Every structure is written in C-alpha cells, then in structure tokens.
C-alpha cells in the first residue's frame, strides 16, 4: 500500500493548484512559430464558437495589422474600446485593463501577450494584465510566438539573428490551462507572405529577407512543436503523479546559478531556467558581492540587478550574498539550501597580466567536491559590448590636489637637498604618495606616483632641471620608486576603502541591532510601527509608512502620518494580497512614487512597508536592498509576535471566563433556590393558613426582604457576567467620587436598618477616571457586606482621600472583624466568611469588587482594624485629570 502513495506535499500542492485553478480564470494560448501563421484568426474563430455557445465574450485587444481576413472576423465580436495613452507626445492605443475588469466578461481576447505597455499603464507587460484578469476569474484567450518565450528567446535570437526584447516568462506559459498550437508549414507561410496576407505589402519584402527565410521558419516551427510537446510531456507526468503510477520519485533537485557583472549574465540565467525546467528543479540565482565588486560602476551594478530581476521573472528565487571569499560564500549558501547543482558561466579570457590568478571555475571545482558544477558556454552572438567604466569616477579635484601635493614636496625638498641625501628625498615623495592615496583613492595615488618620479628626476637628479640622467643607475631608482609608490598608493587606497566599508557596515549593524532591541521590547502593533518608522526613516533617509491590515484584510492608512499623501492604498493592497514587492524600483507599477514591500512573517504577511526614497539608487543597490529586506523581516517578525501575544491573552481571558461560568452555575443554582424556597413557603402560608394580621405583616415583610436580597444578588451576578462576557469593557470617564459615594449611600438607605453610616469626603477631592456604575457596585457591595456581618447599631465609616499617585477609599466597621482563616480566600469567587452561614449571597460580592478594581488597575485589600472590626481599602490609580477650560 505504502509505495502507491505519492508524496503528501506534492499531493497537497496539487490540491491547492486545483483549488486556485477553480477560482482563477482559464488561460488558453494560441501558440505559433512566428507571425503570420494564423494565431489571431484561430483565436477569433474559437471566440466566435464560444459566443455562439452563449458565453459573454469580449475582445480586449486584437491587432489586425491591416489584414482584411482578421478584420472581418473581428467585426463579428463585441469589442472593448482601447485606451488612448499619451506617450512622448504620441497617442498610443493600449488595452484598457480597468474597463475590462469593470465590464468583467466571461471570456476576453488578448492578442500578443508579449507586448510591452507604454509607461504609465498599470503593468509593464501585457501578460501581467492577463494575470490580473485570470486572478479575477475571467477566462482569457491569448496569442504568443515562440520567439517571445523567455527561455527560448536566446535560442531563437541565435538562429535568426534577430533578437526580440518583448518576452513572456515560462511559468506564465506553463500555467496556461490549454495550449493551442497553430501550425502552418513554412512553404504555405511564405506563400501567404507573398500574397500579402501577413504584413502590409510594402513591408513584406524587407521582412521576408531578414526573418522569413525558409531555414529560419523551419527551425522556429520545430521549436514551437517541441515546446508544445514538452508541455504535453509535462502534463503526462502530472497525470502520472495524480494517479500515483510511479513508485519512487526522485529527490527534489535544486540548482543555483551564480552570476557576476559580466555581459553574459542574462544568457546564464536563461540557460539555468531551461535546465531547471527540464529537471523539474527549483532554482536560485545568486550574486556574491565581494569587497572588490562593491567598487563596480553604476552601469555594472544596474546590470546585476537586471539579471536578478530576469531570474525572478523566470521563476527563480534570488539572493545577494556578501562575503570576502566568493567561492566559500557561494558553497556555504549552496549547502545551506541543499542545492546539488551549481551553474557558472565560462570565464572570459583573462588579460595577460592577471594570468597568474587561479580561475574562478577551477577554484570552485577544487573546493566543491559534493556539488555538481555546470559550466555554461559562451554565446555566439554576444550582446553589444558596452563601455565598462570599471573605476568609480573620482572628481578631478583629487588629481589637482595630488599634483599640488607633489609640487609642494618638491619645493620643500629643494632647501633640504643641501642637508640630506637624495635617498631621503625619495622617501619624502613616497610619503606624499601614500597621503594622496589615503585621501583621494587609487587613481590620484597612481598619478601622484608618476608626478613624484618626474619631479624627482627633473629637480633633484643631476643634471638638475633636466629630464636627462647622468648616471644610468638612477633609471633603476626611478623604476623602483615608481613601483614602490604605486604599491603603497594601492595599499593605502585599499585600506581607506576597506575602512569606509567597515564603517558603513558597522553603522548598519548598529542600526539593525538597535532596531531589533527596540522591537523586542514593543508590546503593541502601534509601538512596533512607531519604532520601525523612526529607525527606517533615519537609515534610508526616506519617507516611511507602515500599513497594517484591518480585520477584513483591507490595508489601512493611519490618517495622522504625514506620508499618507504619498501612499497609494490600491498598490499597498495589491502588495499585501500578492505578497510581492511593487512600485518604484520594481517591475510592477514602477511609475509609483514609492517602493512597496510586503512584511512577510513566517505565518503570513503582516502589513506593507512603504518607502519613498529621495533617490532611486537607495533601494536598488543590493547592499541597501538586503538591509531593507532584513529590516522588513524584523518588523514582520515583531508584528507577528505582538499578534500572537494578543491571541494568547485573549485565550487566557476566555479560559478564565469559562472557569468562572462553570463555578457560577453551581453556586447560583444553590444560592438562588434557597431564597426562592423561602418565598414560596412564606407566600403559601399566607395563602392557605390565613394567619392573623400581625403575622401576615411579618410574613409579608420577610418576603420583601428575601426578594430584595435576591434582587441584589442578581445585580451582582449580572455585573459579573457582563464583565466576563465582554472581557472587561469599562466605560471610563473622569468621575467625581463624591457623586459615586452619594449614589451608593442613597441605594443603601433601605438596607442600612439600625446601622449608622458616616461618610467623609474632602471637598477638594480630585476627579478619578473610572466606570461610575461599576465603582458604585463596589461600594454598595462593601457597605452591604459591612451591614450583613455586623450587628445592628454598629458604626460603618466610609471615607475617601487622595494620595500622591492613588485614590484611597476605605470602608470600616466596628463589628467582630474578619475571621483570620478566611482572609486569604476572601476575594476568591464563591467563598463566604462563614461556611454554611445563614447570611444570604453567593459570596460573589467581594469577588466582583476585586474584578472591578483590578480592571481599573487598582488594588483591594482587607484587614482587621486595631480596634477590631473589618477594614476594606480600595486604591485606584490617580491619573492626570483633564484641564478645565478656564474661560468658562
């Protein structure tokens, strides 16, 4: 039985896929070898068919290219008007995504999926529009040529010599529910071309010469057929997995492609994507940034970012690693990710002066014995060589300073020549070179070295004031001096650079440490947001906003934040829902004013981080990006922690509530039944015996007292229940204790009987923030208690006074006092002073008092006075009462 089972994870993934497919719209791609094979016509015919079946069909965008056949077909279908966009003063028609979403047809037709939208549209690419349509449950028919498929783009380019720049990622193609291959033999296509059915006649001839060569067409057709066959093969495999036909599934493959700033990165990435898809493997694309690579020119950095982005769009996970030793870092990462295949590009030929260095691939092969290394070949058609500025530009002032410094040294050395030997002058120049290199970097350092040698020759070496040399030995001195100066300059510059980098890193590490320290102390989501806000805006010198979702998963913008004007809620919501970055510096909605980053925690996304940097570069640099990611992860973790703390507290509260409810039921059934029995007994005596008037009155009075007690008990019960049901929800306001005490006393007048109550409240007692009804309940219960447990004629004292930080309310009596053994359990639910006492009440009174007082963050305590008698003290925190408007 066991071996018939599939891997549970895989099954789960399949179920998820099915579930999401059920909600998502279906994508049908009409796939062809090249333009003119009849994809659009096939799509339109299929749409006609769907229309006749009663489906709500809409043409989103279809290009007729002036072909009459297509136009005729198109006229029979309902069309969505195109959106007119102004782009560089031209009117361009684009697919109107928003109108389509609003119209929400069952089926929509989108031609040329690889099309790039002009900037200003919601997505950079048309296929991204389609993704959204699918996500909204709308079926899509689309067309695609083989050369637009990302992984084949390179290959097609090599075959035809024509590269297209509009591509569609393979995963998009793979997720189509149906691929319809529109095939036309090359001869027929060429015939159509001649007849003018493909392009407009004047363009046809030129196009045919470049692209529509028979050889090209055959190759393209084969590619298209093979790609479709691959897909069918993939479906077959999926089918086998579903039916659990295969016994053993191979261990999951994971491969890593390592890219650099070279020109062939895109090719490497595409090769890796192809290999990964053939192996059905996960793949990662990494860039190892060593200190040397941090000095790269901006264009090269940009190129690396482009490669990483390309890899991401092809379905890879990307990472930028930092380390001194590229190979060790790379291997450690590969092992940590359990990757068993490593792809590296064939190294370019090294210049002769670096020939002594070990080649990267060789070193890698030596060190990675447990990992397969693949070396990717060089492309025949390399991308046009772009001028690479390897050295960071150094302002010309540095060179001027270097020259000046050398001149000064020469001037200084001239009078010294009478005292010192020539060799000391050389030392002086070397010192200057080192100084310049430390200040200005390696370029000015090298310049200073050259200047120094020239000046030394001209001014100091005999014959002086001439470049000619008397003694040939000096030529050797020059060479040595130049070499030493260059090396010193080089070292000094490196030292300086290293120091700068180290300083920068230390600063960031400090920031990160400070952030995590503060975040770990945060107890509420607001505190987390506040802390993160403060740190991020400092480190990234940007405007920062952190948006959290509400209960309905809708992103909320705190109105108070000054940044709210820059934040687009729709984008933030998208980022939150899709868990992907968007906005500035990304591929989605790159025209937005800010960078949006989902705060991904282990369990789920917790919010969205919005960053509006003053300069693009601040978020595009890998170093910055990594830091930002780390910050985001920290914040997300903190938010998640806070969330679970709240959940745990809720659980605790509800558990306590549950326990109480159970105890309550048991106690109530006893304590309510007793007075009820009395009531029934007394009233039936009245009814049946018809006693004399005096007894009748006494019985009636007993009934009244009993009922009154029950009413009191019920009030306590209801209050307790209310406190427990809603957690504890206080209706706090700034209250006058005098009023509350007054109301409590008024309520007690009937119960007091023979007891004497004295109230002491100072006239200048400050207001106290509390829930008046509940506090009155506390006082009534304490007074009621005093009445119950003292004989008539006893004195009860109620007083209130304010201390430095608290308000103290004391209820004292001169009765028998509290029994010592019951003291510790006095405030627990359902205990009573004397067990089996005839005094009514569930003993809920004091427990309720405690619950109420503690909900006010106060304390309640009981003790016996020195003079005997019980004393209950309630202490409430004394906040700062709001100011009165003195004008009134």
């Amino acid at each position, binding site marked *: 039985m066991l071996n018939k089972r599939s891997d549970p994870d895989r099954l789960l993934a399949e179920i998820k896929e099915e579930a999401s497919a059920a909600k998502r719209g279906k994508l049908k791609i009409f796939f062809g070898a090249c333009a003119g094979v009849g994809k659009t016509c096939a799509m339109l015919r299929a749409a006609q068919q769907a229309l006749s079946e009663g489906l709500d069909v809409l043409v989103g965008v279809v290009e007729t290219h002036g072909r009459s056949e297509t136009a005729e077909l198109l006229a029979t279908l309902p069309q969505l008007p195109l959106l007119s966009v102004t782009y560089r003063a031209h009117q361009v028609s684009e697919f109107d995504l928003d109108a389509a979403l609003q119209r929400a047809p069952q089926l929509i037709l989108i031609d040329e999926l690889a099309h790039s939208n002009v900037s200003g549209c919601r997505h950079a690419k048309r296929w991204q529009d389609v993704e959204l349509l699918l996500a909204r449950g709308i079926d899509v028919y689309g067309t695609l040529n083989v050369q637009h498929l990302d992984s084949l783009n390179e290959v097609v380019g090599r075959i035809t010599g024509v590269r297209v720049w509009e591509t569609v990622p393979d995963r998009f193609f793979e997720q189509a529910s149906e691929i319809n291959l529109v095939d036309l033999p090359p001869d027929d296509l060429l015939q159509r071309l001649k007849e003018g059915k493909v392009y407009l006649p004047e363009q046809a001839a030129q196009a045919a010469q470049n692209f529509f060569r028979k050889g090209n067409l055959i190759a393209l057709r084969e590619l298209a057929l093979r790609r479709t066959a691959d897909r069918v093969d993939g479906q077959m495999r999926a089918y086998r997995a579903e039916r659990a036909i295969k016994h053993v599934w191979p261990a999951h493959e994971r491969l890593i492609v390592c890219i650099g700033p070279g020109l062939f990165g895109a090719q490497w990435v595409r090769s890796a994507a192809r290999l990964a898809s053939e192996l059905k493997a996960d793949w990662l694309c990494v860039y190892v940034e060593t200190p040397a690579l941090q000095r790269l020119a901006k264009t090269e950095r940009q190129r690396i970012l482009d490669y990483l982005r390309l890899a991401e769009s092809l379905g890879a996970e990307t990472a930028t690693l930092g380390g001194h030793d590229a190979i060790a870092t790379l291997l450690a990462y590969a092992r940590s990710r359990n990757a068993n295949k490593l792809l590296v590009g064939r190294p370019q030929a090294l210049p002769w002066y670096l020939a002594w260095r070990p080649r990267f691939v060789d070193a890698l092969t030596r060190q990675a014995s447990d990992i397969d290394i693949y070396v990717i070949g060089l492309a025949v058609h390399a991308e046009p060589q772009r001028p690479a500025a390897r050295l960071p530009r150094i302002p010309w002032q540095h060179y001027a300073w270097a020259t000046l410094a050398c001149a000064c040294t020469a001037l200084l050395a001239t009078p010294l020549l009478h005292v010192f030997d020539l060799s000391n002058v050389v030392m002086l120049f070397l010192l200057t070179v080192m100084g310049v290199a430390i200040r200005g970097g390696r370029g000015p350092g090298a310049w200073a070295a050259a200047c120094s040698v020239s000046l030394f020759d001209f001014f100091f070496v005999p014959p002086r004031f001439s470049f000619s040399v008397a003694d040939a030995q000096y030529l050797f001195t020059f060479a040595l001096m130049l070499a030493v100066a260059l090396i010193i300059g080089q070292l000094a510059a490196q030292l300086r650079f290293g120091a700068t980098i180290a300083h920068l890193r230390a600063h960031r590490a400090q920031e990160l440490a400070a952030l995590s320290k503060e975040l770990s102390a945060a107890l509420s989501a607001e505190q987390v947001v506040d802390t993160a806000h403060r740190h991020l805006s400092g480190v990234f010198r940007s405007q920062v906003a952190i948006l959290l979702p509400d209960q309905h998963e809708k992103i909320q913008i705190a109105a108070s934040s000054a940044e709210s004007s820059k934040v687009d809620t729709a984008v933030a919501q998208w980022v939150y829902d899709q868990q992907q970055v968007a906005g500035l510096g990304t591929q989605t909605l790159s025209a937005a004013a800010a960078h949006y980053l989902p705060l991904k925690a282990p369990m789920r996304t917790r919010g969205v981080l919005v960053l509006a940097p003053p300069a693009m570069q601040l978020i595009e640099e890998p170093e910055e990006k990594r830091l930002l990611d780390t910050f985001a992860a920290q914040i997300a973790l903190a938010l998640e922690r806070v969330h679970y703390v709240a959940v745990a507290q809720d659980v605790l509260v509800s558990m306590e509530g549950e326990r109480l409810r159970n105890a309550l039921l048991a106690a109530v059934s006893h304590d309510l039944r007793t007075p009820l029995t009395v009531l029934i007994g007394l009233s039936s005596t009245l009814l049946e015996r018809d006693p004399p008037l005096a007894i009748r009155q006494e019985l009636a009075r007993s009934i009244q007292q009993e009922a009154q007690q029950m*009413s009191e008990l019920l009030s306590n019960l209801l209050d307790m229940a209310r406190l427990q049901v809603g957690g504890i929800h206080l209706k706090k*306001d*700034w209250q*006058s204790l*005098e009023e509350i005490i007054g109301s409590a006393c008024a309520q007690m007048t009937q119960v007091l009987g023979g007891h004497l109550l004295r*109230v002491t*409240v100072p006239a200048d007692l400050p207001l106290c923030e509390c829930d008046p009804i509940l506090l*009155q309940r506390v006082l009534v219960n304490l007074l009621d208690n005093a009445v119950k447990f003292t004989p008539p004629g006893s004195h009860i004292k109620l007083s209130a006074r304010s201390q430095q930080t608290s308000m103290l309310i004391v209820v004292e009596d001169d009765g028998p006092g509290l029994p010592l053994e019951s003291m510790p359990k006095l405030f627990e639910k359902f205990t009573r002073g004397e067990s089996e006492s005839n005094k009514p009440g569930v003993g809920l009174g004091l427990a309720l008092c405690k619950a109420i007082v503690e909900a006010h963050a106060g304390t309640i305590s009981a003790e016996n006075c020195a003079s005997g008698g019980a004393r209950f003290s309630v202490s409430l925190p004394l906040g700062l009462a*709001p100011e009165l*408007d003195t004008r009134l």
Partner: protein
Amino acid sequence: MKLCVGEAMNLTRILLIEDEQHIRRFVRMALEAEGFSLFEAATLKQGLIETATRQPDFVIVDLGLPDGDGKALIRQVRSWSEVPILVLSARDREEEKVAALNAGADDYLSKPFGVPELLARVRAHLRRRQASHGQTEAQLCFGDVVVDIAAHTVTRADIPVHLTPIEYRLLLTLGKLRGRVVTHDKLLFEVWGSHYQDRAHYLRIYMGHLRQKLERSPAQPEFLLTELGVGYRLL
C-alpha cells in the same frame, strides 16, 4: 393638595402601559388606593390610542412592550402632549435610560421597584405640574436655599451665596426642569453650548461646587441628586 375620592369629575387620570399582568394589578391597587383613576394598556398600539382618547394627567410606560419599543411611544406622545411620562424598565443599562429620557421621558424607575418609590415619584411629578400651572417662576426654593431669578441672587438660610455664572446657569437649568432627570448631554448643551458634549467632567466639577455651596452634606445630597451614568435631578 390631597385629592378627594369623591370628586369623580376631577380625579387625576393615570395611564399605565405595561404588558405584565401582575405588575398592572399591583400598580392599580396601589394607585387606586391613593385616589387616582387608572387606565391600563397592554400594548404599544393600545397605549397610543388610550393616550389620545383618555387625555391622562400622567403616563407610566414599560420600555419592553410586545409590539414595539416604549421609546417610540414616548416620541409620538411628545409630539402633541407635555404630559409627564415615567419609564419602567427591567433593563438597567444606562444607555437605555438616557435614550428614553432623550426621547422625552421625565423620569425612570428600574425594575424591581417598590410601591412607596413609585407613589413618591408620581406624586412629585403631579405636584410639580400643578405648581407650574399659571405661576411665573420668580423664585426657586429647595431646603433653605432661595434663588431669586429676577434679582439674580442666591441665599442659603438668608445668607447670600456667591455662584459663578456657570454654576448659576447650571442651577437654573436644573430648576427649570425640576424633579425631572436631566441627562448629561442636555445639561452640557443648555449650559455650555453644542461643542461640549464630550466634556461630562465639567459637569461633575461644577455640580460638586454647587453641592459644596448649597447642600448640608455634599456627599449625601438631599436635593442636587446624581443619577449615576445618566444625569442629575433637582428634587
């Protein structure tokens, strides 16, 4: 002031709108023994008809009626009549009381209530109504306090008491609606204006001052009564 049982034509008419039969019975017994003439209604609809046709001098309404909310009835009655309305309610939630008072009720009693309490309220409201008929309010007297409205002076046991303008306005507002429970919102509106609805603590402070100046024992007031969570009342 006590009404004679014999004067059938001038009997004070009280309407009781209450769906619970036992409560109707003991209220009837108590009020008739005091010489009032009582009419009963068990539903909101019937209550409205009775109010219109009987022209009662006093109405007692239960808030939880089987065919609707007593507050709706109060609002309707208030649109054509100034008759004193006392609300009976088993709901002891303060918002309910405030809502009923804001709808136009004069007073409330929480169930369970005793007969003496009910009688005292009914008498007090009827007396107030009688007193205010045909009499211009030149003076406001309670305990040993006399407020001369025309002369703007306040004396307690013939000794002049100084009140600030706000305290004076507050006292007069309570006096104007004497015997009735005046909600916090209404008091704030009458004394301070419409922008002070969320500053109930102003009321507490100034009421405290008034009690200090006019009550014998401010912590156990006799006239300036607090209806906790609802409002104030000048007895």
